[in-house]
């Protein structure tokens, strides 16, 4: 798994960047979500994988017993996922607003303010 996951992450990154580079606003959001996902996995994998043992101290112990997963990347991940969600929802609403106002989801139509004026 330790050898395979880096490749999966690479594939996710490639897919996300390719989607971000699209002209379509919708695909941009998909790309952003995928990129967030890839980054989370990246952090997770960098912090080493531990099969089984979660970072929880058993009812009978006072300290955690090996093997237990590194809690630090997990804490980072939790924060990252939640903030990523905030960004995603914001962009999703933004695209809706942009479509309502300008009637387009093509990013190239938004390259300059002047061009947007012309659409009216």
């Amino acid at each position, binding site marked *: *798994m330790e*050898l395979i*996951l*880096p*490749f*999966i992450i*690479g*594939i*996710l*990154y*490639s*897919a996300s*960047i390719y989607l*971000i*580079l699209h002209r*379509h606003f919708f695909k*941009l959001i*998909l790309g952003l*979500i995928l990129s967030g*996902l*890839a980054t*989370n996995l990246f952090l*997770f*994998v960098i912090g080493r994988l*531990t099969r*089984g043992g979660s*970072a*929880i101290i*058993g*009812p009978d112990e006072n*300290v*955690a017993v090996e093997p*237990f997963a590194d*809690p*630090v990347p*997990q*804490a980072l991940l*939790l*924060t990252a*996922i*939640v*903030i*990523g*969600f905030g*960004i*995603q*929802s*914001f962009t*999703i*609403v*933004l*695209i*809706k*607003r942009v479509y309502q*106002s300008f009637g387009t*989801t093509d990013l*190239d139509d938004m*390259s*300059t303010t002047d061009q947007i004026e012309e659409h*009216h």
Partner: protein
Amino acid sequence: MFLAILAGFLLAFAAPLLHRWLGKWVLVPMATLPFSIFVYLLTLTPAVLGGDKLGELHDWAPSLNINLHFFLDGLSLLFALLITGFGTLIMLYAGGYLKGHPLLGRFYLYLTLFMTAMLGLVLAGNIISIFVFWELTSISSYLLIGFNQDKEKSRNSALQALLVTGLGGLALMGGLILLGMAGGSYTLSELLERGDLVTNHALYLPALVLILLGAFTKSAQFPFHFWLPNAMEAPTPVSAYLHSATMVKAGVYLLARLTPVMGGTDEWQYTLMLVGGITTVLGALLATQHTDLKAILAYTTISALGLLVTMTGIGTAPAMEAMVVFLLAHALYKGTLFLVAGNVDHATGTRDLTQLTGLSGSMRYTAIAALLAGMSMAGLLPFFGFIGKELLYEATLEESPFRWMLFAVSFFSGMVFVAVAIALGFGVFWRRSTKPTPLQHPDKLLLYLPPVVLASAGLVFGLLPGFFVTPLLRRAAESMLGVEQVFELALWHGFNLVLGLSLLTMALGYVVYRYANRLLSYASRFNKLYLFGPANLYQLTLKGFLIGATKITATIQNGYLRSYIAAIVTAQISLVVLALWDDGPRLELGNRLHELSQLRLYEVVLLLMIVSALVFLFKSQSRLTSIAIMGIVGYSAALLYILFGAPDVAATQLLIETLTVVIFVLILHKLPTFKYLSHATERYKYVLISLTFGAVMTYVILIVKQYPLDSQLKAYYGQNSYLLAHGRNIVNVILVDFRAFDTLGEIVVLAVAAIGIMAMLKLRMQKGEKP
């Protein structure tokens, strides 16, 4: 001297205010200043003529060896007297020329600023201060040329002059710094004694090239001469003062000033003689191709500047003598002729030589000034110009390998000067005409007095050369030669070769004047040549810069998000590759392949699910399907977290993924279907960028995982979560206890996002209102 400069700057900036208070009488204080400085300088004259060199030191930036150091010797005094004396007359003249102009105050501001800067330049005793004043003259010249700012040609000419002299100024700064390094001092008086040290220094050649660039651009030497005729867009007082008598001579002054320091070498001599010679001939030639009075004067000025540079290049005692005499003579007659041209333009409304005739009746005093100046320019006995011309011929005819070439150059320009002098001094005014050009207004005192004074000075200096001029010019020439020099100016040298050549010049000059029209008709044949001329080159460069800047901006800032992203990603890839290229850690996969055998079946299924989901995502045309597929990828990631001991993360991921899908479906169901919008070639480019980025990230993880992770945090939290914070779920404890403030920050981010979303959803744009 410091006070004089300071007073100049103060008065300059007070000029607009004074104009408001005093109206047209603003010329009184403006002319008083240069006149009082002129008188002050005269009081210093006896000391300088006695051979003294006066200095005055004020600290400016002593730690950098830059001081406000003033230095007065013969050469500085000659220029300073010229600047203030001529300045006084110009201030008066400008008051008459621009009478009633609403911006007269501003004009005086610029003009006084220039005069003070120019004065500072010739009085400066520190080469860095020379540079500062030098740049000030360029800037004030820019403002003055562009004084009629509502005319496009005026603005372009001003910009051209600024760019050419400004670029030269930059070169000069480099050159002066190198000179300071070579000579070990920035102080002029010290440098003047270290000529041998400087010329033998390794930095001599680069310093020379840069300083010459500065001097040549300022003094309109070939191939930088083209800005000067264009600068004639300025009001005539400016043309007369800056672009004939003073500023354009700053380059000559600098060369003269530095002659004892840098002169005497082959590089110096040949460059100056060559460039000066070409400029002399070219200026004289071009002068015959124009009928605009100011254009003719501008080109003859270029020619005269070329002569001055050539003389400086020759560098012998007679050449230096000729140079200072010719410099003074030229300033006097050329300044007069410019003022005369301004008068004619002002009174008749035209400057075209072919339309002007018979003005002597209506403009009596101007006509007299023109005649006097013309005779001096032609080099007639007993004018000062005659002495200048004799000395020029003598200096070129000295024993040297180039004597005939040098003589030919000065002879040719002398011939053209005679022709121009006849045309301007005689043709416009005194040639009999049945139909004199009508005047719009009669001659005015303020307009004809300055040229008459200047022209008479040319006559008085010629008649009495020994009285005041000779000692001054002698000291000036000494400043350049660096040794004591016996110096006699006499009007009459007897019948000799030079006199004969002078007469020949006259005769041939008259011939040129007679056949000027035929010469003019050749003008069109030169047009093709101009295409390759420096003026055209300048235009092309300027245009090229504009186009280039527009293109670069359009490329870098094109407004397309994806090109920005592509650039960022590419840069990141390059940085990583650069860091890993040479001595970065090497990837060794060989001994880790056995890890593959620990792979479990359900893990493989999970991974295959992610990959196939991505494949479907790219094939899908429907928005809803894409959203569902994104859900699959997210849930798979959540499962991965569960498998590797992160139940909290997995729970959050599941929750968030569900919420995202819900929001997507709720909000985006009204959008249009997908279209493939990108070009095929662009798509391949983006595929390449994306794949490379993925590969780089994979490589980075693999490299990182090759080394053991030494995290003391894991052990610390494992030890203390329960004992200190009384929680058994370590991740939870970190979030709400150990790093609680981070979590607070996260909540704030979410709250801000929520507010933004609310705002966007609630915002109802009114009909017709622009978003």
